[in-house]
């Protein structure tokens, strides 16, 4: 996901210009947030809207002098809840979250490498379909760099439950992908 592929909206520019802290957070977390939302099943436009709304909420949150220790987890939670609210039928649309068009990351590789990558992605996609919704969300948040405690805050789960869910999901993928 290229930084240039997603235009920065004007309100967010104003927001970023007024707060160096939010600017730093935006640069650091925008990409993982977008990837998480897109992989959840949102379109690119929807994901950008949600990310902007999340950062505007953060700006209001910080402006009201309410301190937040874990801003990354807070942002993911806000984005996750907004994504759910935007979906008319969350479970239906999110049931196949990772079946979008894929961009080959081995575009500069040989044809054999591209074929192998495609086959690997096909296998991963088939294995992901076997995961439950919570297992997918746990894996996606983990791929976004969140700790188990943050994932638990986003999804409303205990840390021990997150650990169990993560282990189950990884084992399922390993069995199905045969890597």
């Amino acid at each position, binding site marked *: 996901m290229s930084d240039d592929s997603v235009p920065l909206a004007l309100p967010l520019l104003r927001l970023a210009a007024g707060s160096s802290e939010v600017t730093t957070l935006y640069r650091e977390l925008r990409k993982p947030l*977008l990837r998480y939302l897109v992989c959840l099943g949102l379109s690119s436009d929807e994901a950008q809207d949600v990310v902007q709304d999340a950062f505007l909420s953060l700006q209001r949150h910080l402006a009201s002098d309410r301190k937040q220790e874990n801003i990354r987890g807070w942002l993911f939670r806000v984005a996750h809840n907004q994504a759910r609210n935007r979906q008319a039928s969350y479970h239906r649309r999110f049931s196949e979250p990772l079946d979008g068009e894929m961009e080959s990351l081995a575009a500069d590789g040989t044809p054999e490498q591209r074929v192998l990558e495609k086959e690997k992605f096909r296998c991963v996609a088939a294995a992901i379909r076997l995961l439950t919704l919570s297992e997918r969300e746990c894996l996606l948040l983990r*791929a976004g760099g969140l700790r188990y405690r943050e994932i638990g805050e986003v999804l409303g789960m205990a840390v021990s439950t997150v650990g169990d869910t993560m282990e189950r999901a990884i084992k399922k*993928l390993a069995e199905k992908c045969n890597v």
Partner: protein
Amino acid sequence: MCDVEAKLVAWLDRELSSDEAADVDRHIKGCQECRGRLATYKQVSETFDVYCDAVGAGKTRHRVSRWVPVLASVVAAAVVMFLAFPQRRVEPPPVLAPTLASVPVPAPCAAEAAARKTMRRRHAVPPVQERAMKWQPTETAVQIAIPAEAMFPPGAMPKGMNFIAELSIAPDGSVQQVRLRQ
């Protein structure tokens, strides 16, 4: 099945406490099977991350790439049309200068077009006086013979006397002048 197997993913993610992590470290050094599982879990995690990157990149880039060829085709077609059919300037027919002597209704073409255009507008109709000043009065177009008995009481005028009403009609159809003569 090893005791630490359930903790391998958490160990990989560094989510274990220091004591638990130390136990797993010791076990891994002596258990080849768990080392193999760890390698598999690590590879699965990396593959999942790469897959998510590919999905995200595909969704965000595909929308742009889908429109690029369409826009390029439209622009190319417009250029071809412009080159194949250059815009020709339409020469208006020559307009003779209107003269009162030769032309009974001297209405300049441009002025007429402007007047028609103006009349089509709903909210910008020029006043009648202004329009009348632009048009030259025409010669008498209508003459109406009116018997004197129809205009005066019986006995006021001699019998058989008629009056002729001459109506000057403006080009826009309005009556400009009425003159009554014997």
